[in-house]
């Protein structure tokens, strides 16, 4: 907790809210997010993880890149732990739980209508987006990750 100032936590909470639900953090969300840092588990953080967090807080697209990369390559990194906390807070908050639990916004295919595997097609745009962000994040962040993992980086 002492590692992060209240201002820093508020700023990153706000970033995460914009990233996840396109809304700013309310005071209630920011307070819960900050309190949650008392139980944030320690991780095997490496220099790249600090870079990833700083990089992610630079903007919404950078955050999406960093998060996608971290999920695949550093799933327990500080960034992923903080995003997990942010999701948990948003799904419990009075102001945002409805957004988190919202149903599908596009095509609705009712249960048991016998359409078999066809509805998988409707996931096409979402899956294409996943592939796009995955390829982009690997392309952009792998070189830095490799560089910061090199023997020339002092740890500790």
């Amino acid at each position, binding site marked *: 907790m002492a590692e992060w100032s209240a201002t820093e936590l508020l700023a990153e909470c706000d970033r995460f809210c914009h990233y996840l639900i396109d809304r700013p953090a309310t005071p209630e969300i920011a307070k819960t997010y900050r309190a949650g840092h008392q139980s944030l588990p320690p991780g095997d953080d490496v220099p790249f993880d600090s870079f990833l967090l700083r990089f992610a807080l630079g903007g919404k697209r950078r955050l999406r890149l960093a998060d996608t990369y971290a999920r695949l390559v550093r799933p327990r990194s500080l960034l992923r732990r903080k995003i997990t906390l942010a999701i948990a807070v948003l799904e419990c908050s009075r102001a945002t739980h409805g957004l988190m639990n919202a149903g599908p916004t596009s095509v609705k295919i009712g*249960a048991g209508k016998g359409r078999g595997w066809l*509805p998988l097609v409707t996931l096409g745009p979402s899956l294409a987006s996943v592939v796009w962000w995955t390829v982009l994040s690997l392309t952009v962040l792998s070189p830095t990750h490799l560089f910061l993992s090199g023997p020339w980086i002092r740890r500790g």
Partner: protein
Amino acid sequence: MARILVVGSGASGVHFTLTALRRGHTVTMLDVGYPRADPPAPEATFEALKEELEDPAAYFLGPDGQGVVYPGGTSFFGHPPSKHYVFKHAPDLRVRTDGMSPLFTFARGGFAEAWTGGCYPFSADDLKDYPLTYDDLHPHYAEVARRIGIGGTRDDLESFMPFDVDYQGSLPLDPHSRYLLERYAKHRDHLHRSPGFWLGRSRVATLSEEHNGRPACSELGRCLWGCPTQSLWAPSVTLRECHEFEGFRYVSGELVRYFEYDSDGIVSSVSTVPVGEGSGVPATSYSADAVVLAAGTLGSSRIVLESLARRTGGTYRMPGLMDNRQVHMPFLTPALIGAEPNLASYQFHHLAFAVRSSRAVGDVHGQITALKSASLHPILTAMPTGARSALDLFRRVRTALGIANINLHDSRRVESHLGLEYDADGGSRLVVCYKPDHDELHRRRMAIRRVRRALLRLGAVAVPGLTRTLPMGASVHYSGTMPMSTAPAGMSVDPSCRSHTFPNLFVIDGSVLPSLPAKNLTFTLMANAVRVATVAF
């Protein structure tokens, strides 16, 4: 009439006690007994609770976020703060583990305060290693069903789980489970032939109609956080009934350390220490005509080990520790993609399955839970993409998601055991060692393959890369350290669960099971506890 000391208030302890009280005996129950807090707004649905509570995050995540499930865990859900009392450790208990990550409970009501209610009687095949028959247990299964109320439907699972007690009707199916069951009906013969898959309705201790003053499930969607109406039976329901008897005394806040016995093995007293007050506090002694251990396999075995060690100075081991290996297999049912979710719905499993093995004891059992209300963050962070993409994708597939929980059977082996060791300060430490069966990996792979094939036939696909084998200890079906046997062998008990070594000591929890089928054992433990109270007292 006997004066009986019962140690522990879990599922077996309360049913033994209620039977003994009804038969006119007096019972003192010794328990640590961490209590459950009253659930807030008992009429509110899962979503309404987030609107009604002053600080919903404190309830759902804990005041400092202790209930958040961070990446790296093996489960897709954690224990919510409202259930932390169930898994809270007694501070005076030391444990060393090897090959197993056991959970401990000191809650009033034990582990079944946090169960999902599955009630599956052991079949005659399941009982073939037992010095009992199904007929010995049947009347007691029936008695437990009358007491707690169990919903069930006569279906294809009957050949794995006898259906011959009074069940209530099953709960209304959620759309996802209904879809899978309809597909099963269509492909039933094929599924039976290969991969040997049977599907049916779960038998659950959740009321579909009012029963003994408890209301039917009102589908609030709060099951995981603790049923606020007690439509889902928990031991605290039966414990309340015990309090109606004059001959019942409940002593909480006490951890039983050991019992004293004479040269004939007669247990003369049980010693307890107040929980959390350190080792310097003098022990309190309780005496009775008979002592009944119902503290769970780890708890009861520790008491026996410590009693033996204090008396003889030797160290002892109890071989045969068992638990069901569990595998969680998330799946997606494409036909349900895009359907609107209904969060106010019964949250736990509606369906159960069995996979037939060439050997009866090798049958695999499991349960299928369609996703309804749940904590989203463990699911979103498990999806193989960033959180924003995961959330977009999740909204489309939510109603199509489910999880198959696969259980494997276990058998007693010398390598898996409980023991006791002593620290430099003289304090004792429970040692829990577990080594899987040599063919467990093969059985697990076979089970995963066959369930995956069955799901495909049901129109669902196991999500690649997300099937997780839970660490040993996760199923909390610990058993086997003091097995029932007709002849004395180690720390065994006779068929009435009376210790072969200590004539007035009875053990009625999972410790006494000689083998562990791939089923939830709680229904059998409750029935056996009623049986022991009936035949031995």
